[in-house]
């Protein structure tokens, strides 16, 4: 068996990659993809914790079900996020978040 901390280490690396992408990428679609990476890093953690600690206790399915809900949130986030990007692009011909400043005070 693979020890728990190795799963967590991979998840941490994936999360950091996502953080880097969100901070450094200029393109809104690329930023959204980086957010998906971060969400998946979280999912690895949830399932790993579920497998290594939870199945022995009474709370049989918390991590499992929670991962499924995170998946749903990720899907909803991608759908709405991309729709916003498409609309902003249609109105301003740009996909760079810094340039969408219509609501800036």
């Amino acid at each position, binding site marked *: 068996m693979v020890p728990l901390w190795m799963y967590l280490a991979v998840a941490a690396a994936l999360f950091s990659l996502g953080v880097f992408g969100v901070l450094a990428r200029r393109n809104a679609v690329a930023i959204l993809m980086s957010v998906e*990476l971060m969400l*998946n890093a979280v999912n*690895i953690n949830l399932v790993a914790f579920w497998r290594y600690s939870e199945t022995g206790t009474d709370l049989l399915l918390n991590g499992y079900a929670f991962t499924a*809900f995170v998946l749903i949130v990720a899907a909803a986030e991608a759908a709405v996020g991309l729709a916003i990007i498409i609309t902003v692009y249609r109105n301003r011909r740009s996909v760079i978040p810094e340039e969408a400043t219509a609501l800036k005070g």
Partner: protein
Amino acid sequence: MELNAVTIGFAVFTIFTLGGGFGVVTTRNLFQGTIWLMVSLFGVAGYFILLSAPFLAAVQILVYIGAIAILITFAVMLTRSVTRIKVRYIRLLPSFIGSLLVFLILLFGITVPIFGGQLPEAAPQTVASTRDLGAALVSEHGYVVPFMLASVLLTGAMIGAIFIARDEKA
């Protein structure tokens, strides 16, 4: 760590996950970025299988590779000038240092000190089946509230996204 199916699988899926993730943040071409994202998420699905959650793995592939990949590709094609952006990165150095710090803190601040000592044998052998999940989702002692909320969220997301993305002129 001895060499067996699980460890080989773990190594392979780690290459998939992290390699794909690296591709996502570095590639300039967004379509290739989408494919890299799918490689990465495929690796994550592999982890789910290693962690005895095959249902989640199937769902991961179904939702990400079956749907979100297609959706991102459509969006990439709809926002054509996406590929014309000359500058790939902004604040490259601070972001790099920041994310590296996040990684180091996560790894050596939390993961290794707390869970580094946990033995591999800690994983129990009883694993829940999909049927248990289905029963738990809709039982009043289970997850029926998040279940309904998920439904509301999905409905809201769909209505909202259609409302935003629809071309009024057409």
